[in-house]
């Protein structure tokens, strides 16, 4: 019986997200990133902005709401995100604890699902019997 049990990965993931685990983790990670990694990140950002200011002198005189998207675009073009994400990936996301947390919650969802399916099967079979 147990061998036949299969689980749909996508369903698992969507359920995981639906139950709010994903957002919780996301916030948590963002916080940790903000604490640990933001220092060098912001330093680099400052450098990029300064460079951009030198490149385009009108930015200084521009309204900040107009200048901000321009700078954001410049940041996008730089390798800041790639580098920092690489860093974050290796430091934060590859954390074994995090993996375990996810795995455990997924397992729980999976078990619940299997139980649920079993119940349904039972119900179905019961009704079938009843009909007969």
């Amino acid at each position: 019986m147990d061998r036949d049990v299969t689980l749909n990965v996508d369903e698992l993931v969507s359920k995981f997200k639906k139950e709010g685990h994903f957002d919780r983790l996301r916030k948590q990670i963002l916080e940790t990133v903000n604490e640990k990694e933001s220092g060098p990140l912001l330093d680099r950002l400052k450098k990029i902005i300064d460079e951009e200011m030198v490149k385009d002198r009108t930015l200084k005189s521009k309204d900040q709401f107009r200048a901000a998207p321009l700078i954001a675009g410049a940041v996008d073009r730089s390798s800041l995100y790639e580098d920092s994400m690489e860093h974050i990936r290796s430091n934060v996301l590859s954390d074994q604890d995090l993996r375990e947390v996810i795995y455990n919650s997924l397992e729980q969802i999976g078990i619940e699902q299997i139980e649920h399916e079993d119940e349904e099967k039972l119900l179905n079979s019961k009704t079938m019997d009843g009909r007969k």
Partner: protein
Amino acid sequence: MDFNTSTRSKSQPVQRNNYKVLYDPELGIKENLGRKIIYRFNGVSKPPLVVRDPRLKNPIYARGIPKSGRPFLKSLQTINYDYNENSLGPEPPTQVFVSNISPLVTSEQLRYHFKSFGEVFDLDLKLNPYTGTSLGLCCISFDKRSSISVAAHSAKIAVQQANGLRFSGKPLSVVLDRDGSLCEEAFKKALNAVEKQFQEETLQKQRFEREDESSRQKLSAAMNEDIPPWRQPSKNSQTLSNGDLQHSKVQNVDQKSGFLTSSETDVPKNINDYIYLLIDDRFVPPDRVYYTDIKHHFRKFLYEKIYMNKDGFYITFNNYREASNCYRALDRTYVQNCRIKLKFHDIPSRTKEDGKKSAVRRVVLPPEEAYAEATSVVLRDLEAALLRDVKSKIIGPAIFKYLHSMPKPSVKEELQENLLVSSTSVPDVPLKIESTVGKLPSLPKFKKRVDSSKMNLSAGSKTKSKLQRRRRRRHEARPLHYQLNQMYNSSASEAESDQELLLSSGDERVERGKIGSIKSVKSDEATPVFSDTSDENDKFHRFRTKSKISKKKYEKMEVDYTSSSETESDASILSPSAAIPKSGSAIKDELISPKKEIDEVLALAPKWRINEFDETGSVYYGALPYNYPEDDVLLDLDGLQYLVKNDEDYSYLQEALKDEPLMDINDPNFWAYERKSCKFKNGDVKYGDTAILPEPKGYFRSNTSGSAKSEGYYIIPTTEKSLYLPLRNRSTIDTISHSTSRITSRMNRVNNRRLAAGVEKSQLPAEADLLRFNALKARKKQLHFGPSRIHTLGLFAMENIDKNDMVIEYIGEIIRQRVADNREKNYVREGIGDSYLFRIDEDVIVDATKKGNIARFINHSCAPNCIARIIRVEGKRKIVIYADRDIMHGEELTYDYKFPEEADKIPCLCGAPTCRGYLN
């Protein structure tokens, strides 16, 4: 016999043949023709012979032999026999040769076009074998398998209709081509020309290449090993053209594919991953249904692509909905007379879910594996989410923070920068909202200074305000940072306007900003008004939002709160002294010296004014920023005395009149006295007083030339006429005789009935017919039409009509909307300006223009006495006019036309006190 010969020999001038005796006296003498025989030779007679068709004598000849029922043929008919094996002579041509085709035209297009003449059997568009482009020559043969004559007929029609037809900008030339020899010849010719050109080109190229090569050889010896480059292009093109030739051959053989490359139409291997409709090959015989037909058949649906193989056609779709729609619409329809059956294929559910993500990943797994897989998926998603978060939550705010903390460039620097870039940068405005808000009793308004010239330009302020509203709405849908920007800007302008308010320098303002005018106005109304200017503004706003303000009024109001406060106060100080009536010789001391110059002004005053005004006297041509109170002043002596208040004014006056020639008046004082006493005697004004122009009462039309007589002939529109003609366009007459003993229609009927009963009782046998009483006639309301005060003709009641009584039915032709549109256009073209079209519903309209009854004469009124109802009588809808109130004898009948609102307004002339001004 003898006698006959003797008479003939007697009068025998006839030696010639071919004659006819027109008149033979032997057969009966006619006095006026004499005794001589009249002949006609060779059909030429003295009175020229008029040949008439004897059949025309019979007017009903064309109907044929009486009672036979078969008409005569108008002309002889040729009989066409089908060409078959028994026919003589060569086969009729079934091929056409098309030349002068634009190189852009594909064979597909040609085929599609020529299919309209008949079944196309073969279409051979000649291609340039070197480049693969079209040579503009084509041989089209029509399908003669079933019937040669049909094919020949198609070819003939093709020549008739397609010859000279413009196809992609070039007129086609189509000729019959029996055996394709014409096409062959033309193709050879074209090919020769192409080859010649090609050879020339290659030669030239070779020459260039050779030169190039020689120079290169000089440069490096190593390059020598290369293949001579001039061979390269020719080789390339050769192979290419070969390929193309083959290709075109393939197409000609496989007609299904049309012009598409086989790779394009080949069914992909993973066809099962698509949503597609399959048309089985059984339904679409390849010789009858082509790829293009299928494409054409499905053109209305957003299919992705059409593939085909020996199983049939596969029409793939992007989404399920479109596919199912298509399936429902086109299943069991006909393509080229072939009924097609569609087979609907959906993506299997597994792949559907999987489609978005990696196709390699297995989805359904045993639990442990599934957990691991899911974990990695979650991690991947987390990473993506994190990147987004970092961007928006860390980097974004950091940029802003940095920009904010950055020292603002000094003004000088900024200026330099602006000079450098000359861009329209918006400097940050210091935020002063808190300070100003604290001081103000009312909420801040969002306004902006606007050129008065611009404001005056907007004739339809209503439409403009609508536009503004729309624009405002659009603002709200803009990206957030724009909106934020807007907010900051508006707060800045808000601060500006507040400052202005504090300075109480009232000026024209137009509301602007996201919050909208209504809100701000409301807040104004709610809060106590704190100064005169704001009150004025407030009123102004209310008027603006209502947008009903007339221009004249509007301008006057402007005047009220612009400069009047100063000038009027000045006037109040100065005018008493200036306006003291004095004896003619003694004019005020301070004005004695400028007297002379002022006199000169008088003669020239009108000219001076004309420049700024048009004939209505109210619209600027944009010369002045706004209206002055001085504009209402009559520029005579008193007026000028009133206007010129100090030395400064006087100096300006002098300046303005510098160029004017001096008038010869002896004693200025006496002249001035004469003028003033003359004015007084005319009774226009009190002595020496009232410099202000009298307000025109009632109807007033100002003429540019100053006099209506000098204007010449001009047409006064009816709307304007109604303003001063007392009886024009006044439908509502004063019902003077509200007699209590008025005979209503009901009483009328009752009386009639009584009369009829009485007649019957008296039993008069002879005049029974005469006295027969028509009850229906009595019920009909007595109406007549005549000249109306509203518009041309109108319908008038000839009896008293009770409220809710049926008055008349609106009768006319019942037509459809389409027809009505056409007719309306035609009527306008014919000069029938009035509309007699009455709409019953969206598609049914009653047209009483040409056929109808007098109900069509009923005019519109905004305060009608009738109402039009659409009622159902025996299942047919009728328009019936009912009386909406008691209508007196002689009153004109009116009802509300209820025209839909439109851009071009039709002025209403009903003259009712509640008139809306327009019909629509």
